[in-house]
């Protein structure tokens, strides 16, 4: 074997990272003995690098690189001051007392304040900031973010950078959407808690509970986005899907693409194609296979035991079916800044069933009420491609109390619902949207509100019902 042949083998092994110390020493000797080999090596390394770049260009995500770079730029003045203010202790409540400062004291106060500010600035500048992995793109209701350092923020707004940590939506009607730097969007609604992280471009989401919708852009090869719940783990390379996570089971509905799901109870895996749903429960004897989802399901009937989103579950007893009793909730408005109001509320989630609302849909609610009361019937709707769309409500000012085992049953046509609180940023009509959750509430007191059943009916179902009757 001549020198160049030997060199070509050693050099290829070097580029492949397969050279041990002895042969690395041999390669060094060869390079030292012949300047032509050094040039050959430099040429080969250059071509090798360009080939790596040329082949990776097909998968190169310029948007992700640009967004990631922009996120690493030092923050602007406004954001910087905001951050500094967050790092300072809270101001004590203001009192009516008026302070009159003497000029000398005032000067000292100014100097002290300036020193504190400079110190805060220095601390901020010296401490390396955490890396932004996503930004809030929409938010509604009470949402809380606990960053890695344990700092809690409740003032999330559009554009707030997320550096990883725990994101929680705290009420049945709260909702938040975040966009990762590669454009992948995830949203959480209802009572949800998720830990977000991203390392070397691999996104990992631990969904402890709640509802999530994800529109995932193509992920780097070998770095799929992972969504981990109590009972399942999903790996995603680029798709749209919806997850509903509960204590005992996780249901996952795929809208586009393919998702690989592993049931944690026994490690079995299944691939879920578009328009299919899979349920991963803790009980291993339950079915773990994708089932087709009727894309345009227009009916739904709640199973109060499984679909309860908020309220107190009352198990079936003495001939009475299971029901959800309204529980108190302090509501602070969509923006979390309004005067708190005491509500007694029951929420039922449609989970991955997500039926479509039609112009002639009706919502039927069956329940009990111990006293006459004003009752608000409402629902939250999502866009069919994911993400919160709006809330709609119908108020019955004088609902009569029911007696004993007697139940009320109200049928409310879809056109009877208006935009909740008159908020104009919700679509004017919910027709075509997906029913996400139904809620029934009373104000200030509970009035013994107890819900046995909620149903979404379409025209065919009612025609059939009438024929049977």
């Amino acid at each position, binding site marked *: 074997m001549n020198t160049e042949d030997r060199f*070509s083998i050693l050099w290829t092994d070097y580029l*492949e990272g*397969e050279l041990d110390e002895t042969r690395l020493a041999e390669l060094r000797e060869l390079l030292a003995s012949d300047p032509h080999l050094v040039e050959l090596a430099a040429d080969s390394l250059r*071509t090798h690098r360009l*080939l790596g*770049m040329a082949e*990776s260009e097909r998968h190169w995500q310029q948007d992700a690189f640009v967004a990631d770079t*922009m996120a690493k*730029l030092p923050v602007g003045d406004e954001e910087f001051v905001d951050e500094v203010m967050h790092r300072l202790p809270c101001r004590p409540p203001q009192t009516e007392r008026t302070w009159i400062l003497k000029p000398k004291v005032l000067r000292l106060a100014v100097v002290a304040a300036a020193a504190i500010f400079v110190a805060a600035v220095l601390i901020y500048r010296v401490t390396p900031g955490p890396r932004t992995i996503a930004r809030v793109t929409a938010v509604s209701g009470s949402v809380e973010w606990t960053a890695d350092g344990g700092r809690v923020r409740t003032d999330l707004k559009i554009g707030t950078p997320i550096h990883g940590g725990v994101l929680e939506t705290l009420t049945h009607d709260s909702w938040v959407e975040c966009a990762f730097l590669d454009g992948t969007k995830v949203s959480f609604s209802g009572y949800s808690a998720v830990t977000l992280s991203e390392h070397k471009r691999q996104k990992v989401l631990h969904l402890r509970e709640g509802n999530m919708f994800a529109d995932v852009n193509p992920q780097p090869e070998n770095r799929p986005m992972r969504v981990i719940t109590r009972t399942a783990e999903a790996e995603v390379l680029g798709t749209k899907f919806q997850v509903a996570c509960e204590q005992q089971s996780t249901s996952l509905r795929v809208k586009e693409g393919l998702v690989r799901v592993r049931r944690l109870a026994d490690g079995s895996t299944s691939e879920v194609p578009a328009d299919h749903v899979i349920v991963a429960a803790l009980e291993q004897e339950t079915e773990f296979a994708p089932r087709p989802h009727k894309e345009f399901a227009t009916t739904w009937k709640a199973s109060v035991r499984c679909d309860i989103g908020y309220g107190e579950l009352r198990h079936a007893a003495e001939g009475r079916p299971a029901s959800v009793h309204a529980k108190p909730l302090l509501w602070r408005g969509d923006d979390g800044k309004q005067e708190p109001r005491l509500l007694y509320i029951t929420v039922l989630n449609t989970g991955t069933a997500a039926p479509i609302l039609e112009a002639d849909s009706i919502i039927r609610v069956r329940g009990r009420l111990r006293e006459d009361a004003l009752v608000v019937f409402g629902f939250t709707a999502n866009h069919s491609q994911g993400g919160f769309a709006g809330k709609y409500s119908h108020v019955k000012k004088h609902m009569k109390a029911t007696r004993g085992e007697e139940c009320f049953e109200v049928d409310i046509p879809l056109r009877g619902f208006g935009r909740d609180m008159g908020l104009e940023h919700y679509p004017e009509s919910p027709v075509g949207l997906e029913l996400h959750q139904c809620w029934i509430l009373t104000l200030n007191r509970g009035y013994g509100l107890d819900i046995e059943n909620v149903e979404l009916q379409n025209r065919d179902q009612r025609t059939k019902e009438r024929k049977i009757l």
Partner: protein
Amino acid sequence: MDTMRHRRTTDDTVVDEAVERVQRGETAPFEVVVRRYERPLRAWLAVQAPPGIDVEEIAQRSFVAAYGRLHDYKVGTNFGAWLFTIARYQLKTETTRLRRIADYHARYELNLLEHEQERRLDEPPEHQVMRLDHLQTCLESLGAHVRRFVTWRYDECIPLDEMAERSQRSVAAVKKQLWKLRRKLHDCIEGRMAAEGSLS
């Protein structure tokens, strides 16, 4: 990196406008700069960086450093040259850091090769983007039986023994094939560079 020889283009004007806005306190226009220079910068770094360096990381650091010193840049001169000077320092800093790590010596360091790379640092950065474009053309001229080795090695990143299995050759033959392939592509690229140089 000679600013005197630099002929201004529409691209330069767009970049300078963005830079001026950033100098006035905006952040968002810096995106124009990143989009304009990310490919040439990565291509330049890919070629110049010694083994073991994360090229994307250095590219990002260079942009962040440029943003931090943007007030030093004189609008109307050559932003690209200014950015590449910063990138060169970033690369040098990272290389120095790596050299201080014992593991680096054992795994990668080939002093003579690095000296040769440093000698080539004076090449205009835009040459690497030209090389990258020529490479695409050269790749198209390869036969499918040879082209597949490029896909396996650089796109699918499969190990040599699997390449040997797929092609029903020995591992040694695969190594030889890769060596020859790189040389052939190098000759093709440099031939095109020379032709372009003589034409201009």
